[in-house]
């Protein structure tokens, strides 16, 4: 008799989701799916609001990566105004974005994934958390907490508060960066670089014990998409979109992020509130792609900072043309933390950051604006339409986590086929969740497509027998 295994809720991730695995009569995995079961609907909420309110409103999408939404929204606002913002404002936005990548990755790696990595996938569930980690290695956990504090400290110093900072808006930022802020930030940097280096060594030292997980927990060729700078290096704030494949070949280069909708499409599936984006020339589902730390390190040719470049060269040796194992999102995350800390250090010595001009003033000059940036989990796009008074008529948010949706489903299925049997133990089930945690999905961010979701209603009789299915396709 066929069986269904359900894991709900999926733990140690942001938001609400479940995993279902369908087994056939022989106890073999027939299918496995990752279902996002929460719905937020910000695309609808913003309609009718003035566009200059959007950064503040959109930051409420997420308590982990609000800065990304503030930045994408501010940049869409810049485009609606038709302005180029002053260099000091650009650099301040870059600074806070680096800080956010740092704090978000610290949360993902140290608080959420380290229990799996350092205590083991088969360790008792009640111990597989930061308290279990605390019993084993206090210094490691302390350094993770300090790294997240560092990122949040910058966000609070510059943005005014650590969650939902509203310091940036259409045309620039609201306050000048000061030497006092710089002095607060620089004292954290040596310790942070050292801590990340220790974490990198620690992760690399345990990777051998995860050979099976590396090989079967989301290891498949796919497209990778990320923002790069003009030279093809790592870029988080402004640049062009590059797409590569699972062998490292360039599929598309120098794509304009402001026109993402011309080459990225969005499909829907009945089992999830989250969209399934794809690269249009390849169609759906063949055109699915991965974004985020793994994709950025695959797509970029170099990092552009000393320590991160050294680590990135070593990282690229783990694949043939591209690193296709989603397990290496963890490693990529730590390399990005190193890179962001080095970039923060560079910015502290940049005189342009301290300049007086921080705002470009203009009235509404366009009716459509697009903003994009690299959020911790991948490329983020905000597209707004406004009426003549600047009131929002429509918004389309293409969120990083959603762009990994198909990859997360493939990872769950591959993991289930390799590790699950008819009588799964806790370790097997944990591997299914860990496959998802590689992507560090932020589900609160990624469920906004009101009215465009397919819907399936199963009507059952008193004994649970299927009577009728009602479907709404998109």
């Amino acid at each position, binding site marked *: 008799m066929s069986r269904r295994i359900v894991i709900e809720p999926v733990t140690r991730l942001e938001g609400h989701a479940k995993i279902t695995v369908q087994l056939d009569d022989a106890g073999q995995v027939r299918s496995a799916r990752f279902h996002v079961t929460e719905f937020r609907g910000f695309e609808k909420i913003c309609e009718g609001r003035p566009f200059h309110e959007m950064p503040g409103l959109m930051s409420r999408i997420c308590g982990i990566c609000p800065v990304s939404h503030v930045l994408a929204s501010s940049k869409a606002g810049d485009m609606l105004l038709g302005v180029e913002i002053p260099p000091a404002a650009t650099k301040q936005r870059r600074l806070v974005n680096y800080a956010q990548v740092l704090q978000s990755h610290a949360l993902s790696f140290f608080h959420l994934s380290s229990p799996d990595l350092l205590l083991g996938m088969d360790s008792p569930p009640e111990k597989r958390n930061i*308290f279990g980690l605390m019993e084993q290695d206090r210094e490691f956990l302390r350094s993770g907490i300090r790294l997240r504090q560092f990122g949040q400290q910058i966000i609070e110093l510059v943005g005014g508060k650590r969650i939902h900072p509203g310091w940036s808006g259409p045309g620039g930022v609201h306050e000048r960066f000061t030497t006092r802020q710089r002095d607060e930030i620089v004292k954290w940097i040596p310790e942070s670089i050292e801590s990340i280096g220790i974490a990198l060594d620690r992760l690399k030292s345990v990777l051998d014990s995860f050979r099976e997980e590396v090989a079967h927990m989301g290891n498949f060729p796919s497209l990778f998409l990320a923002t790069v700078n003009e030279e093809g290096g790592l870029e988080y704030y402004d640049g062009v979109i590059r797409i590569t494949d699972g062998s490292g070949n360039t599929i598309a280069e120098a794509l304009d992020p402001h026109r993402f909708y011309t080459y990225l499409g969005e499909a829907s599936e009945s089992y999830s509130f989250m969209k399934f984006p794809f690269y249009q020339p390849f169609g759906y589902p063949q055109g699915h792609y991965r974004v985020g730390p793994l994709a950025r390190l695959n797509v970029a040719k170099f990092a552009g900072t000393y320590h991160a470049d050294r680590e990135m060269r070593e990282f690229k040796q783990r694949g043939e043309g591209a690193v296709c194992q989603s397990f290496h999102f963890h490693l990529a995350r730590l390399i990005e933390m190193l890179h962001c800390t080095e970039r923060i250090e560079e910015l502290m010595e940049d005189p342009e950051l301290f300049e007086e001009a921080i705002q470009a003033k203009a009235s509404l000059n366009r009716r459509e604006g697009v903003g994009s940036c690299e959020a911790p989990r991948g490329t983020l796009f905000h597209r707004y339409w406004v009426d003549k008074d600047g009131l929002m008529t429509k918004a389309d948010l293409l969120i990083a986590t959603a762009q990994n949706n198909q990859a997360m489903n493939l990872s769950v299925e591959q993991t289930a086929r390799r590790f699950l049997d008819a009588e799964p133990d806790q370790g097997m089930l944990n591997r299914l969740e860990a496959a998802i945690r590689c992507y560090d999905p932020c589900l609160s961010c990624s469920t906004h497509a009101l009215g465009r979701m397919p819907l399936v209603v199963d009507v059952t009789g008193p004994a649970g027998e299927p009577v009728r299915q009602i479907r709404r396709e998109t």
Partner: protein
Amino acid sequence: MRTFVMSIGNELRSDDGVAHAIAAQLEVHSCALFQLTPEVAAEVAGYDAVVFIDADVEVENVTLEQVSVAASGSPLTHSTGPSEVVELAKILYGFDGLAFVCRVPANDFKPGQRLGPRALGHMREAAKKLRLLLHDLDRFVVEESGPLANARNGTTRLDSDL
């Protein structure tokens, strides 16, 4: 005694912002937080006492009690509760102070910046209880006896004593 007040909640979710409104009435070093996360433990460790204030749908009246440390370590989300934060502060940073949590009845969490009647009705009582506690904490440095000493020993529920 160095005391740190942490108010928890989203001020854009009606009653969820009640803790921040109460903290603003107290003349003490405070910090408004959206939610508790592990790094808050490092901040707690720098003080002799910490008081968390939070809106709560499950209490009928304002409660003020010592934080019971039980390392449950919920694996579910990115957030943690006062117990977990204090446990982390003790073990990771050697926090040896007192920790209290004040829970304020609340039931309206829809979007908005106005407090509903339930939270509003309990604000004054919560502020009064907290002022008494803060006053006693100030004296505690010279009077190592009485209800707060018992609190440090974990033998007294402050609700009834204050």
